[in-house]
């Protein structure tokens, strides 16, 4: 068996192993694992007597199918082999708390060995990011976003006094709002948002906030499953997230000024 054939077969095996490890171990350990298995094949090959194709296939056979080998390496499959229940309970608590009260959920997730650092970072980013984003929006909405100085009060007095404008300007600077002065037909006063609109916006915001935590919790739940069932759930999960994100975009983000 020549060198090129050897490289081809080994490369194929290691490529499959690398792909199968994706998502279940960190990038660093993936590289380390592939390196180690490569090393093993090389060593076993040099030690083999015939150096035939059969020898090589035997070496690979003893390692198992690349997908099976990758499965052995995944922390969730190894977790099952140890009968300790504790980390399991912790991870379940983390998932539930992320949906109900995210700061606690995220802290529990970081304490659990069940997830990769990357997964924990994504969950943290989703929950904390959603909170900051929506908090910012609610604050902006609470300030009114714009302050309207209505100098055309019921068309009776024709303009605001200088002192009035000055005071109003200072006030809006303090609040960080955009100042709109309206006094005639060229600059008509913008309509006040109705109560119904405000309530509707509040409800949508509230729902999207809950939605974010739900998605984060679902994500953690998905990532703690063993690989085969995770693959089965991946498509429905991404569809739900995609639909949710489109809904959020259409209802909340796109109408924002």
């Amino acid at each position, binding site marked *: 068996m020549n060198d090129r054939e050897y490289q081809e077969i080994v490369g194929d095996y290691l490529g499959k192993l690398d792909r199968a490890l994706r998502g279940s171990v960190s990038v660093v350990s993936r590289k380390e*694992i592939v390196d180690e298995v490569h*090393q093993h094949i090389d*060593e076993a090959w040099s030690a083999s007597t015939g150096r035939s194709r059969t020898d090589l296939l035997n070496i690979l056979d003893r390692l198992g199918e690349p997908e*099976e080998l990758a499965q*052995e390496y995944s922390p969730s499959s*190894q977790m099952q082999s140890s*009968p300790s229940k504790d980390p399991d309970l912790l991870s379940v608590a983390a998932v539930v708390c992320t949906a109900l009260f995210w700061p606690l959920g995220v802290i529990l997730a970081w304490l659990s060995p069940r997830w990769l650092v990357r997964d924990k970072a994504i969950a943290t980013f989703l929950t904390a990011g959603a909170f900051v984003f929506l908090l910012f929006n609610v604050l902006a909405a609470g300030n009114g976003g714009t302050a309207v100085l209505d100098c055309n009060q019921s068309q009776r007095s024709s303009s605001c006094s200088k002192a009035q404008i000055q005071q109003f300007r200072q006030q809006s600077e303090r609040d960080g709002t955009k100042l709109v002065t309206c006094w005639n037909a060229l600059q008509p006063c913008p309509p006040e948002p109705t109560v119904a609109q405000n309530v509707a916006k509040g409800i949508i915001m509230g729902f999207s906030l809950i939605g974010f935590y739900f998605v984060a919790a679902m994500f953690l739940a998905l990532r703690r499953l063993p690989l085969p069932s995770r693959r089965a759930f991946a498509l429905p999960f991404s569809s739900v997230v995609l639909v949710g994100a489109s809904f959020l975009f259409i209802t909340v983000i796109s109408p924002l000024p």
Partner: protein
Amino acid sequence: MEPDASLITQMRKGALQYCVLAMLRGRERYGYELVRSISEVEGLDITEGTIYPLLSRLKREKLVTTRLVESEEGRARRYYRLTMTGEVALASFEVQWNVFSKAVDKVLHQGGEL
């Protein structure tokens, strides 16, 4: 009736990690060397596909540590060594195993007469 296969697998898996730790007692070994020596032990029935993932877990649990050493053939070999935690875990398993296996043997041999 056949004994529950998964139970035997669990027992084997549990004991195996201490066999790997025991192979590293007092000396460093690189992956292939360790795999060869342990797979030559009759009855353990362990393959490469089990040992390497096991080593990776032992490393993650800080029972062993590794370092890369260049071999004469220019290959980088990953050497495994017991950590302090590993030694303690091994010693404690050894004590418990001795007591337990003796007890099981005794009951298996003369259970009816006890």
